[in-house]
């Protein structure tokens, strides 16, 4: 990859990471309510998965959606405003943290029912195939979703109809406080899917942007060529609790440390420094830019207001 691209990788991951830090701050200040699931630590999965997609490809995922929204090119201000519940948010403040949505970047939603978005991804794939397009669908979900019936129905249908859906399972080893070992008879998400749904699978280090990006490229190519779905198990880790209200006492320090050693951001920085000797200033400059963008995002959110209650019934039906 070219240096400027690599610098963008660094910038983007810092942006996503920084966004979550701001969200945590604002949540503590009581300006953000509800359930709030941070993506910190898993940035390489989303960025690697999104990197080679086209603007017209569809992206859909879970309630842990800030990372995907930001890294897909969503406006951090509109995302932050949504978390504030303000009308200038990406869903007018009606969706909230778990339900970001933006048709302009074809980010078709964060969904809060585990596994619930998987059949919807199949439908997007069906539409693509029906219209003879060469778009693809990226559907991201967690390890816990593989225990939900709808997920299985979806995987079977996507394979049966050879739809251009790429399943990205973020295996961060926990579903809230329950480890994969304690919830799935088959601990490998990839093996759990491969034979059952007869599709190509890969297991990848989700803390490594390059690995993630390259398996994704293969999957995209296959999907665009009409060869059907692929499954990617990204081994990763969430640095924080399941949501802002989870102290995550069920994970021991050592485990957390082990994964923080593999933090994708220092990792990409090291690569860049190794391949091109980039002065620290350049990184600092990007960090500064991230800070500015996020400050503006918070300002944008603060400047907004909740929809007036008179408008409560808007958007219930199309007329």
């Amino acid at each position, binding site marked *: 990859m070219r240096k400027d691209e690599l610098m963008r990788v660094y910038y983007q991951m810092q942006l996503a990471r920084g966004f979550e830090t701001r969200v945590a701050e604002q949540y503590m200040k009581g300006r953000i309510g509800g359930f709030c699931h941070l993506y910190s630590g898993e940035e390489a999965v989303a960025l690697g998965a999104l990197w080679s997609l086209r603007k017209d490809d*569809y992206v*859909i995922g879970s309630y842990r959606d800030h990372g995907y929204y930001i890294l897909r090119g969503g406006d951090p201000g509109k995302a932050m405003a949504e978390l504030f519940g303000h009308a200038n*948010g*990406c*869903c*007018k*403040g*009606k*969706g909230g943290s778990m*339900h970001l*949505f*933006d*048709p302009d970047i074809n980010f*078709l*939603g964060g*969904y809060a*029912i585990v596994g*619930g978005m*998987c*059949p*919807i*991804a*199949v*439908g*997007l*794939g*069906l*539409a*693509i195939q*029906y*219209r003879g397009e060469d778009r693809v669908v990226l559907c991201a979900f967690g390890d816990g979703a593989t225990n939900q*019936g*709808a997920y299985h*129905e*979806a995987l*079977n*249908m996507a394979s*049966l109809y050879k739809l251009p859906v790429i399943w990205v399972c973020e295996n961060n080893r926990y579903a809230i406080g329950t480890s994969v070992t304690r919830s799935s008879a088959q601990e490998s998400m990839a093996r759990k899917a491969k034979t059952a749904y007869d599709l190509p699978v890969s297991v990848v280090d989700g803390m490594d942007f390059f690995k993630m990006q390259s398996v994704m490229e293969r999957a995209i190519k296959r999907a665009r060529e009409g060869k059907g779905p692929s499954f990617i198990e990204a081994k990763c880790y969430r640095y924080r609790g399941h949501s802002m209200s989870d102290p995550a006492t069920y994970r021991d320090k050592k485990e957390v440390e082990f994964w923080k050693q593999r933090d994708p951001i220092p990792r990409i920085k090291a690569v860049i420094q190794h391949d091109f000797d980039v002065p620290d200033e350049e990184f600092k400059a990007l960090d500064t830019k991230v800070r500015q963008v996020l400050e503006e995002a918070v300002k944008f959110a603060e400047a907004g207001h909740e929809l007036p209650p008179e408008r409560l019934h*808007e*958007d*219930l*039906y*199309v007329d």
Partner: protein
Amino acid sequence: MAKTSYRDALNQALREEMQRDESVVLFGEDVAEYEGSFKVTRGLLKEFGPKRVFDTPISEAGIVGMAIGAAMGKIRPVPELMTANFAYVAMDQILNHLALMHYMFGGQATLPVTIRMPGGGGHQLGSQHSHSPEPIFVHTPGLFVVYPATPADAKALLKAAIRDDNPVIFLEHEGLYNLEGEVPDNLEPGVIGEAKALREGSDITLVGYGAMTHVALEAAEALAKEGVKAEVIDLRTLRPWDKEAVAASVSKTHRAVVIEECPPACGIAAEVATNLYELAFDALDAPIERVSGADVPLPYAKNLEQACIPHGTDVVRAAKKAMARQDP
């Protein structure tokens, strides 16, 4: 004008809408090669081919979810659930996704999905296969719920549902598929939310929907023989339902019987009655009578099952009870 069956009327609506709009696609269990377990999709695979009419695995959550995604992908899916009883395994996709996505995403997701499903009892299919789930859908903001009683309405309203950009639960009654009725050629789409008076009367209002509309008509006929002029209103759509039309009728007749096939608690009749009391309290000379499905799962035995389902005689009894009350 030739008689057409409820089944064929639905089939015509599907065919005409598919001819009219390239983006209309049908899928479901055995809808293509088998032509539907109630044969509503007969001939459509042949005419439109496997891209527009195809079979699915037995995966109702998958079917409904696929319809949602397909709609976001700009096609107009008309999935069939083999029967309404199988909507229960897809309830999360229907109530917690389809119904609320347009609202939750601030109006950005538009879901022109029409889910067809035959409902109702009366065929000795047993407890798990004889549900009338209409109240569950009517309770849910974000859905439209249609339940036609006649071939003409079946056709007109299915066309309207398919063209509508909102999610529509389209209930068909298993007992009506063979019902014959007049269906005008080049029938225009109906209007979702409009009730229809199928019989004029001044003494009492009988409110029905789906198969219950015919129970009401039967009762009106019997009542007429005893000199009681009953007005029969077919709701036709259950969400939204035509409160004004029904209230106007009750304001005229001062008495009403509401008929529902489902059990009574939190049912359709409770919904209709409560609103009528609110809209026409002073006009009412007697409590509104409800004739409901029995408050049990439908049993298999024919006599027991029949005892669960409203009949004309039950409605006549209820109407007489309401008539017996003297105006204050």
